Every structure is written in C-alpha cells, then in structure tokens.
C-alpha cells in the first residue's frame, strides 16, 4: 500500500459522512433538488476515495458485489419502480405510494413507494457504473488477458 497515512485515516472518517449525505440527497430529491443520480455520484466519491486509499482489491472487497452487478440490481429496481405504476395506474413510471393516504387530516403516513424505488435504482446504477469504470481504468496497467489482434494486418 503506497497511499499516505493521512489519506487512509481521512478516508475512514469521511466515507461514512459522504455516504450519509448521499442518502440524504437521495431522499431529499423526492420533492426538492437532489435525487438518485446526484446521490449516486456522491456515493461514488466514497468508492473513489476508498479505492485511492486502499487499492482496487480492497475496494472490491468493500463493495462485496461486483460493480456491474450493483448496476444491474439498480436497473432492475428502477424498472420495477416504473412497472409498478403500470400495474396500479396503467402507465409506466406513474407514482404509487401504498403507505401514504389522503384523509381528513391531510396527507398521513409514509411517502414511500415506486418513486423512491426508482430513485434508489438510479442511485445504484450510478454507483455501479462509476465504480466499474474506475476499477477498469485503475487496472488498465495490469497485463491484458487477451492477445492483441489485428495489429499485424495494419
């Protein structure tokens, strides 16, 4: 490990804070500026920091799942969030809030539903794709597992 002690210590302290902010921005995006995309980018900063401080292998272990699988799960969540609207209202992406009701006291309950599912999906797609690109760039120096093709023809 050739990163500095300051970076490693700072990363340990900053990553939880960044992750909290990322989730806060994700939730805030429901009605205000924010949302899954920008929250995902913030979370991706954590991945980048972790990778710079501890190396690609350690960052992969930290993520537990391969980055593209995270992106795939996110895509699936976003699609399901959209299709939920089809089931309830007959149109893709229509908002569904099963725990949120309008009564005599105004809106009550939790505004949690298809929109949050969709946004969480976007969050995961962004984290997964950024991590995949980052790791791929970082590992580009390692010898390739495939021979060069076509060079002899040109």
């Amino acid at each position, binding site marked *: 490990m050739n990163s500095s002690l300051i970076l490693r210590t700072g990363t340990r302290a900053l990553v939880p804070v960044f992750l909290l902010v990322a989730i806060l921005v994700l939730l805030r995006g429901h009605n205000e500026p924010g949302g899954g995309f920008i929250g995902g980018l913030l979370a991706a900063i954590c991945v980048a920091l972790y990778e710079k401080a501890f190396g690609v292998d350690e960052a992969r272990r930290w993520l537990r799942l391969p980055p593209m699988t995270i992106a*795939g*799960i996110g*895509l699936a969540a976003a*699609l399901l969030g*959209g299709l939920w*609207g089809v089931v309830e209202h007959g*149109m893709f*992406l229509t908002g569904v809030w099963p725990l949120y009701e309008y009564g005599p006291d105004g809106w009550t309950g939790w505004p949690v539903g298809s929109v949050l599912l969709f946004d969480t999906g976007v969050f995961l797609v962004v984290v997964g*794709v950024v991590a995949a690109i980052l790791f791929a760039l970082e590992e580009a120096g390692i010898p390739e597992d495939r021979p*060069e093709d076509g060079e002899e023809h040109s």
Partner: protein
Amino acid sequence: MILVWPVIIPLAAATLLLLLRKWDGLVRWGSVAFAVALLFAGVVLLDTVLRDGPVAAQLGGWAAPFGITLVADLLSAAMVLITGIVAVAVTIYGLTEIDRTEGWHGHHALVHALLAGVCGAFLTGDIFNLYVWFEVMLIASFGLLVVGGTKKQADGAVKYVGLNLIATLAFLSGVGLLYGIAGTLNMADLGLRLEGRQEETAVLVSAVLLLFAFGAKAAMFPVFFWLPASYHTPSVTTSALFSALLTKVGVYALIRVFTLIYDLDVPLIQSILLYGAILTMVVGVLGAAAQNHFRRILSFHIISQIGYMVLGLALATPAAMLGAIFYLFHHIIVKANLFLIAGAARRMTGSEELKLTGGLYAARPLLAVLFLIPAFSLAGIPPLSGFWAKFLIVDAGLQLRDWLSVIAALGVGLLTIYSMSKIWLEVFWKPHPDGPDAVMGKVPLPMLLPIIALAILTLVIGLAAGIFVDAALVATEQILNPEAYIEAVLGAN
C-alpha cells in the same frame, strides 16, 4: 403502453443479461429472444400508427408539456421497427462471433442498453429526454467498443468518446438556451412557441448548437473523424449495429428538430445543411477511395451516404424529404449487411486488409452473390433499393434546378461504384495471396442467415419500391405538417 414497450423491452433485457452474464449460453439466446420481442413491439407500434396516425403517451400520468412524453408518428414507428430488424440480425450473428470473454464483460447487456437508447431517441417527445437517450447510447456504445479489451479498441473508443462528448455538451447548451427562450422542453410545445421567432438571435444560436451536435452524431463534415477512427476496431456484430443505427439517430434528430422546432427556410441553417451535406458526401467517398481495409472503406461510405440524407433534408421540398426518409430506411439495411459480410469474409480469408485477402468468389460463390446485392444497392444500381433512394434525391434536386447538388449526388454515386468494385476485385475476384487453400472454413449458419435475410429485404425494397415510397410519402406528409403530431402530444385545442 404500446409506445413504452420498445423502450422497456431492451431495458429489461439489459438488466437481466447483465445480472445473468455468467451463464453464457442462456445470455446469448436470451439476447436473441429479447431482440425478437423488440421487433414484435415495433410491428405492433407501426401497425397502430398506420391505422390511427401519430400516437402519444404521457409517462407518469402528468399531462404534456410537463410530463415525460413519448410520441410516435410514422417516421418514429418505422425507425423502431427497423431497429428491431437490425437487433434480430445482429444478435443472431453474434451467436457465433461474440466470444465468452466479451459475453462475460457484458457485451449482450450493452447491445440491449444501446437499443434502449436508440428506441428512446426515436420515440421521445421531449428534447431534454432526447439528450438523455443520446447519453445512454454514448455510454453503451463506449462499453461495446472497449469490451474486447485490446489497445486498438481503447484507442478508437477514446477518439469516439472525445468528439461525442463535445457534441453532447453543445447539445446540452442548445437545450438550455431553448429552455431559456421558450420556457418549455416539449418538442411539440416548442414548435408552437417558436412560431414567428425563428430569426431571433438566441433561437438561431440554439439551432446552430443543435445542428453541430446532431451533425457530429450523424458524422457530417467536418466532425466525422470519430467514425472511421473507431468503427473498424470492435467485433463485427458491434460495428454492424453501430453502422446501422448510431449515425442514423443523428439524421433522425436533424429531421425531427429542423422540421418540428425550427424552420428550414432560415437561410443560415439551410445553407449550412446544404453545403455541409455536399462536403460530407464528397469527403466521405474520397476517404473511402483511399482506404485498403474492408471495414474502413465501409465506414467512410457511411459518411458519404449520410450526406445524401442530409442533402434531402436541406433541399427542404416534400420530394427531397421523401428521398431522405426512403434513403434512411434503405441505408440501415444495406449498411448493416455489408458489415456482417465483412465479418464473414474476414473469417474465411483471415484478414480485412484488402491485399491479404482474396479468392472468395471461387471458394464461396454464395457469399460473393450476397455481397453483390447490398454493394450494388449502396452504389445505386437499378432496380435495387439504393437506386430508388438516389433517384428520389437527384430528382428533387433537378426539380429545384440545384445543379451543384445534382452533380455531387451523381458523382459520388460513381465513386461509390469505384470503391465497391475495389472490394470486389480484391476480396472476391483475385486469388488469395497464400494460394487457394488459404480460404478456410464455411460461413456458419448464424452468420449466413442474417446476411441472407437482409439481402432479401434489400431486394424486396428495390423491387416493391412503390409500397415503401408510398409509406415514406405518408411519413413525409406527417413530418412537414406536424399538426397531427402536435395534437397527439398536447391534445386538441
């Protein structure tokens, strides 16, 4: 919902194929199955639009111009259908061509992510969403370019992404400017609000920014060099998919935006389009004449053919627009097929460098005949589809007495024949430099079937041109008189 399926199907495909990418056989056939489903969705959509005229859907249930609008007129629906056709052809071809490593790195999922971006771009009724779909296409195509993992591919991908990022940045600036001017991003609404304001400076600046962005996407002169730098590096499956769809999305966006939002009779815009188109045609075909690599020649030909389509748009008469739309359809089929044949020829002869190949006519006469159909069609030899496409454009130029574009169109056609006959002589006619035994193997069935199917389609478009010209005529009328399109989006008022 009929409008949503062409976007959901490839998105669902990308998701599943990404999560299941370790199961190689399952993913290969799954990719084909989803492509067939996309084709089916395209058929249903086209059928609906042919019967009912333009249809729109508001995703999320918010009314236009505030919600997410999907809309299809005949042009969009036909483009979705043809995307489905290309998707099926390319995924079947990929059954043998794509190896396990590329599959494991996510090739099949990326193909469907690209298809989702392409279909989304064809169907969206909102210019910002058009930008988003362009980004989806850009990311997916970048992935497809580097999925093989060789240095040459990374080099091509960097050039590709570099110029495309500049183009999308211009696109975004243009969209921002439009939003500032009109306060809306819905394309039908924009069309209404910019009526009578076409000569304002801000409108013209946004138009030129969008023209630059779409021009770069369509590989127009002088922003085409990302295309020949990258199209010959990835797998043949990938480059066939790119050659068929990516630049054509740019042409589609030009047609859509410069008929619905901007007026073409503003002299600045029209002259940029016209001279840009002529230069694109000439530079593309001269570039092709200088190349000696099968797929690089084909790549430069995409550029010159794009010039014809933009020329049709720039001439701006109904006849010319008809030619541009007919050209668009014909070109997608022919170009994809030529790339697929280049891949089969490489498999037989071991190279794509013309001087290292040869002997295919003697060894594989069927493949040679299958090459001649799209090659002659591209060059515009009657009665193939390319002849009618060029005929419509040249005829429109003659009606306008625009001699420059007529001469350019005819001259470029002749030079196209020159480089097609160069491929014929080098790859098919002359003996292989390593002797007749150097041509090895048979064309595997999953490669042969799409090539045959696309060749038959080329013949059908050529021989039954009347039906297709009539359909293109309806599409042209809808493009030039967008009232039905606007009404489908915004409702009657």
